[in-house]
């Protein structure tokens, strides 16, 4: 499983997950696990500092939702967040290409 090395890219992954649906913290962690096929492993608790950071930067917004039996904080990506996601994806693709070229993958 891939652990600490992905932490630097957690922000991008959160933005990517939220670009498709508004989700609460637990659902975001489930979605990250599902999309990675269980390969990404990091303490789920560290997701929340990232969410707070992204919200503070104006890339996410959040609200309390009482729709379910339990009251949850639901996060949504903002317009600035979508722009940031595009930039992060571009950067990531360049990085992967460059590292692959050097490593000979």
């Amino acid at each position: 499983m891939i652990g600490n090395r992905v932490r630097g890219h957690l922000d991008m992954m959160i933005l990517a997950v939220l670009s498709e649906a508004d989700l609460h913290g637990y659902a975001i962690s489930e979605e990250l696990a599902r999309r990675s096929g269980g390969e990404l492993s990091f303490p789920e608790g560290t997701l929340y500092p990232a969410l707070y950071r992204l919200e503070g930067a104006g890339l996410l917004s959040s609200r309390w939702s009482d729709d379910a039996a339990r009251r949850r904080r639901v996060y949504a990506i903002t317009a600035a967040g979508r722009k940031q996601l595009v930039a992060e994806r571009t950067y990531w693709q360049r990085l992967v290409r460059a590292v692959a070229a050097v490593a000979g993958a």
Partner: protein
Amino acid sequence: MTMGTSTRSGLLLELDAKLQMPPGSKDRFLAEIECHLAEGVEHLVEQGVEPAEAERRVLARFGTAEEIATSFAPRRRWVAWRSWRRFLAWAPDHPWLAALALPAVAYVPFYGGFGLYAAAGGDCRCGTHWPGWLVAPVGAVLLYVAQVALWCLQRSLRGAPSAQSRGGPSGRQRAMALIIGPGYFAAIVLLLAAVREWRLAGALAAPGVLMFGVMRARRGSVARSRFAASVCSPIFVLPLLVSAVVASLAATSLLTAVAALAAVPTSGAVSGVAAWLARERPEGKAPQRIWGWMGESSLRSAGLSGAWGLIVFTSPALAATGTSHLAAALGASAAASGALVAAMALAAPIGRIYARRQRLLAARAAG
């Protein structure tokens, strides 16, 4: 490498102690984590995992309080917010300075009002019974600033229950809140009546009691947490001060009116802090801390009683020595501030001892 906590409540308590965040954000953060953990356990139990094992797995997956606290990078906010956050982080390590700084800042408008009035050649003669004219402006500011400042300090030290905590206090706490809240107003009115300030007593009592009833009826907020019992009190400040100004003008005591008006910005600032603190509405069941709550209430009451006593008894004594009314007023206010500072300084170490005890109990409970 630290050992993970073995229960959800243990992890939440540990996080409460370790996270360096503004109190409102911390409450929200803890509520979200509580929800996350509960959902994780439910999910596994639905899949047929034993509840104890489900909790163990969820906690292992979630990470330790230390990991989470370390990875938390505080949000960048506007200068005032950052300064306030820094103050909250700094205050526990410098209780004496913090205790001094809060009332000092809070009193700038009050003393400024006196100073400007005197510098402008204002009439400092008292038109009413001495020291009755001093009671309303000094007392009102002392009362509310002390409540909010004490609460802020203690909240920063050990994380008080949130404003909207659904846990709710015990029946005993409810009863105490009912006694203490109206008790303040009763004390003010009785004191004013004792110095024969009937107009002020009436002016203060009517809107005070009315607002108290409205606030309580709204959602039983006084009974919900000590947040409401202390910080929501500034809801009363403006109507009370307006009443004081009206009553003072009616009594032709210009100085009282000026002092009361000078206290309005202070009250506004206090109300702003209260609004900021009340903004977050986490759903988490904050642990009920009856001893801390009772200790705070007792300390607050003792501090305020002391301050009232100093105002009432030192003012005539100073005036009897031939000191000018303005100097006597400033002396009495300074003495009252001193009592307040002492009470607040006492509150900080008490809060620390309490927080240590809570951590010890949590550690024991966690095995």
